[in-house]
């Protein structure tokens, strides 16, 4: 690691694991010269629950209630990634309606996370009202999930070959009603956060992510798109119903915290647009294929890497089967892996101590993705 660590002039600080800058337990060990960080090391491990090891001991279907717990704010992408991998290995076909419902679930989840993340960005600099409003609006989305799956946070709704059940009667009207409620409040949300001079002063030009770092480190999601990149799996390699929807990738050029917040704000509009398209074009038909006997289900031998676009960026599952009733290996590659370790350690050098929380939240790290 670079940076001066002269004990005469350097302050050594352990930041975390409990602090305002992250949506889970993760700490950063930092060295300061005055207010300026000269060196930073990310420490993870507080949330290690051995998911990958557990998955090797459980039946293929038993891993579905497990994978969603890897990321609390947005569990559905884990279900989707695992389902895509199992379907690819087993050669399973997914009915069209199930693909559209899955896309709807993924976009609803993205909408909820981006509402929370956008408000949360303001919360880190003391604008607590923004954080509360974001959580409040997200709750309307969680109401929909509760109706659809029975669970507000963990849904366990996406399974191999489709989804657990069809949309309930009148669901479309309630989705549209929630979208209208959110849209009605967004202008006020914008005035509170984006037009706030303190928010702009604390975010414009702070937490720079240089465009050349995107390829070098493999940065994804709003972190990359806030620095001008157009990386988005939904458009580059469409899965489920994304190939049939009309949308443009959201990008900003500022490379700073403000740009990343703006990407998330515009992603909210994009998700609302996609959900409307999905509700209008939803095909009829079955929502799942017939699965084999789940206790004796043997997935053919093979290896596959499946990927989807989460609210934080590209999410991947490397799944290996040896033809048995349990996975041989499952490796989860969340976007936080690179953002919270490789990127954060580099971008904190030269930053001010007062901006640490702000920078960490702008990366929307999710520590369980790193530790699995």
């Amino acid at each position, binding site marked *: 690691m670079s940076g001066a660590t002269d004990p005469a002039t350097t302050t050594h600080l352990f930041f975390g694991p409990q602090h305002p800058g992250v949506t889970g337990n993760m700490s950063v060990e930092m060295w300061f010269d005055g207010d300026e960080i000269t060196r930073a090391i990310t420490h993870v491990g507080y949330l*290690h629950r051995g998911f990958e090891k557990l998955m090797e001991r459980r039946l293929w279907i038993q891993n579905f209630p497990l994978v969603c717990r890897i990321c609390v704010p947005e569990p559905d992408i884990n279900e989707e990634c695992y389902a895509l991998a199992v379907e690819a290995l087993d050669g399973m076909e997914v009915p069209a309606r199930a693909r559209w419902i899955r896309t709807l679930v993924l976009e609803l989840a993205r909408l909820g996370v981006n509402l929370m993340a956008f408000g949360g960005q303001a919360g880190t600099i003391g604008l607590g009202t923004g954080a509360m409003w974001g959580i409040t609006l997200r709750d309307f989305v969680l109401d929909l999930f509760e109706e659809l799956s029975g669970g507000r946070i963990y849904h366990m709704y996406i399974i191999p070959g489709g989804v657990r059940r069809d949309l309930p009667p009148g669901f479309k009207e309630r989705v549209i009603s929630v979208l209208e409620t959110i849209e009605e409040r967004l202008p006020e949300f914008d005035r509170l956060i984006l037009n706030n001079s303190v928010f702009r002063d604390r975010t414009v030009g702070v937490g720079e992510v240089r465009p050349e770092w995107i390829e070098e480190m493999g940065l994804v999601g709003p972190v990359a798109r806030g620095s001008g990149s157009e990386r988005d799996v939904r458009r580059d390699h469409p899965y489920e119903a994304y190939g049939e929807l009309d949308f443009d990738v959201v990008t900003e050029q500022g490379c700073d915290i403000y740009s990343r917040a703006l990407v998330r704000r515009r992603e909210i509009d994009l998700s609302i647009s996609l959900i409307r398209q999905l509700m209008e074009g939803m095909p009829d038909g079955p929502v799942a294929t017939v699965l084999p006997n789940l206790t004796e289900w043997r997935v053919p031998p093979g290896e596959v*890497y499946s990927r989807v676009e989460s609210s934080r960026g590209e999410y991947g599952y*490397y799944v290996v089967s040896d033809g048995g009733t349990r996975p041989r290996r499952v490796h989860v*590659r969340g976007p936080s892996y690179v953002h919270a370790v*490789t990127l954060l350690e580099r971008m904190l050098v030269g930053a001010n101590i007062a901006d640490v929380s702000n920078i960490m939240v702008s990366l929307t790290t999710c520590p369980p993705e790193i530790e699995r």
Partner: protein
Amino acid sequence: MQKQIADMIKDMKCPFDEVRSSRGYLHVRVPSDRAVEVLLGARQRCGMKVLQLISAVDRIEEDVFQLTWILESSDDRSILMVSADYPREDCSVPSLGEVWPAAVAFERELREMFGIRFPGNSRQEEDFLLEGWKEIPPMRRDFDTLEFSMRTFGQRRERTHTDPRRYIAEITGEWETPVPMRKKEEK
């Protein structure tokens, strides 16, 4: 993309097996002593500039670790997976941290979870997740999770009833409940 990469590997006179191939996705298996050469060639000649993941599979029956590198094209975002088998005993794989900075963290985790060493990785001795871990690396197939749990945490006492008051009284000794017990429960 597949053809370009296949041609590149053939130019290197490197034997390879195609494991899986589809649109925008290619998985090849190469000899372990040529894996790094193929990865660097794919980066320089085929634009596979983004490292997505380094993963390992413990194939204990064959006494090998299968390492898999997942690269992504910066042009069309297609995926290239390169796999190679390394002997399990004293496994050592060249580090790619100088080329891809993200590799440093992936390699640190593999050293910790599988015991695979990556010479050239300047931070491979730093703990990643498991600070102070003294057992064999836990993601190896021969790590006995049950034996470790029993030895570390012991067996939970068998539960003979489901009354929380009795349970707390048993483990803490005397315990006075702040709320008077109802007659039915006193019996």
